């Protein structure tokens, strides 16, 4: 397991909203320790028994917080992430989709300078199977096991986790890093953590077209990774210059092509699965 476990105390920003309240219920049901929520102007209320505060700082006077998850609308989401980081929350998970990119450019720089880890935006969050879910994924498809997952996609991650679980391999921690062009944490930030994690025996990297995060991950793997990695890339048949659902899934000129990503992984000796089932086969093979 990396980053989060059953002891992680979670704050929900935007807890009184439709999404925030729905997923607070889901996280509580999974066993996540949701200790407090924040919605500016709604302090004093309760959501599913969780006390609501007006600010992160006020919530942290009464509670110890290890991670915050954000369900705040796009126009205010980067600000919410900054609020958490400045209040001293060490891990900030930004679920919101559609955040203006320049807000993220500024927020990512500032949050990193504060030494805080930001995951997302436009991501499903993270889950340590059987321990805690700080995200919006369907918890039941993640069975505790041996494989770590890092992914730019949501649904495809659930598919991969379900397939690994059905095959008896199971997952340790799964991190959805998000589909936006500017995100807080990329593949290569998480690979070292999985490399160190005694429970994780192999890592599945689910990438897609756009940007060069897969290439950077491959370069890191080539130099440092001591555990088997299996890669998957979606959007291999996508046309150039078109945004495929995710703001970040776009081939621009020569950057972000599937060919470049395939080549990078091949150079690093990382096998590439063409289908979800092949992910399972390749993981099985690498684990012997």
């Amino acid at each position: 397991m990396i980053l989060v476990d059953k002891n992680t105390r979670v704050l929900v920003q935007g807890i009184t909203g439709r999404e925030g309240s729905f997923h607070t219920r889901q996280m509580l049901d999974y066993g996540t320790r949701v200790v407090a929520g924040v919605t500016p102007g709604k302090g004093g209320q309760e959501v599913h028994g969780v006390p609501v505060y007006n600010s992160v700082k006020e919530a942290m006077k009464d509670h110890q917080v290890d991670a915050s998850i954000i369900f705040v609308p796009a126009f205010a989401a980067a600000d919410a992430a900054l609020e958490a980081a400045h209040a001293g929350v060490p891990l900030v998970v930004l679920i919101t989709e559609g955040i203006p990119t320049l807000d993220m450019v500024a927020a990512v720089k500032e949050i990193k300078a504060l030494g805080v880890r930001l995951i997302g935006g436009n991501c499903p969050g993270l889950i340590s199977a059987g321990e805690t879910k700080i995200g919006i994924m369907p918890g039941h498809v993640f069975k505790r096991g041996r494989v770590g997952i890092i992914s730019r996609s949501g649904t495809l991650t659930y598919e991969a986790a379900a397939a690994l679980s059905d095959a008896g391999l199971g997952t340790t921690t799964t991190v959805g890093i998000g589909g936006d062009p500017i995100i807080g944490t990329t593949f290569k930030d998480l690979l070292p953590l999985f490399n160190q994690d005694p429970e994780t025996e192999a890592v599945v990297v689910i990438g897609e077209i756009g940007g060069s995060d897969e290439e950077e991950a491959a370069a890191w793997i080539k130099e440092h990774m001591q555990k088997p990695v299996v890669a998957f890339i979606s959007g291999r048949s996508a046309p150039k210059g078109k945004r495929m659902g995710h703001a970040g899934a776009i081939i621009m000129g020569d950057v972000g092509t599937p060919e470049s990503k395939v080549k990078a992984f091949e150079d690093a000796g990382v096998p590439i699965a063409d289908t979800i089932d092949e992910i399972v086969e390749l993981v099985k093979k690498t684990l012997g």
Partner: protein
Amino acid sequence: MKLHEYQAKEILAKYGIPVPPGKVAYTPEEAKKIASEIGKRVVIKAQVHVGGRGKAGGVKLADDPNQAYEVAKQILGMNIKGLTVKKVLVAEAADIAKEYYAGLIQDRASQRVVMMVSREGGVDIEEVARENPQAIVKYKIDPHTGLRPFEARQIVLDAGLEGNLNKLADVLVKLYRAYAGVDAFLAEINPLVITADGQVVAVDAKIDLDDNGLFRHPDLAELREVEAEHPLEVEAQNYGFAYVKLDGNVGILGNGAGLVMYTLDLVNRVGGKPANFLDIGGGAKADVVYNALRLIAKDPDVEGVFINIFGGITRADEVAKGVIRALDEGVVKVPVVMRVAGTAEEEAKKLLEGKPVYMYPTSIEAAKAIVAMVEGKK
């Protein structure tokens, strides 16, 4: 979202960057009138959402209003890279001594906005990047300070631009302000011209806006030109679907961008051609699925539909209800194959029993089936 040159120039002018005086014309008569108002040699420029208009014959000089009429008549209605010219910019011709390049892009690798400046302007910057990369100076901008004059001056010096240093730096500073001010994704001045009498002028401008920032700029959001996009893409936008029209015949519907991309890949891998990308998003209810199928069915290219669902927050039975309604109402008249898994999978399968939908346990089997069906029809 793309803006036209004349719209981009209005933004630059608002931020204090000199642009040649000009106005947009929809008819040769209007072009003539604008040319006579300007009272000097003018340039007539096709306003379409593509670059390289000059090379394509969409940028021409006119010495007087009568010639402006003739040139505008030629350019209006012209087809440039598949787009019909519906309007032209009539602008005062600049007396060009030098053509430079200045642009701003989002650089994902460094997570910054990067300014690029080059002595080699007026040509395609991607070509310069390929053939003479040293000719481009790149500078990462701190989002918390913006581009400051001292930084801009150094960029001008490093790029070896000749001309008034302060005026050139001022344009760069203002270009970043404009970029940040309108939430741009890309902003380019190409060429940035030094005139014979030493003025610095933005002779061409291109701004693409960040769609995620549009809510802050309702005035700019209004400039979206629906006719420039595929009509089905416009309709999809109204429904809030992520939809991309593609050139094949297999309609695709799924939940989650990654899963939909994967579904396209599978269809391609087994020799088929997807007609579209359509992500119904997370937590979709039956009516959303129904509307998505209606949209796909409107596409005359579609000869079969592949619905690929992995239930998470989205319940597979909700999807099934939407599919059934579309089938019962006769919305979809082509074969439908479906693969469902995850949350409420069993409920969904029960609902779909006896319905005219071909169910497959895996994505790859479903892909093979739909491709065989549309092929068999020919």
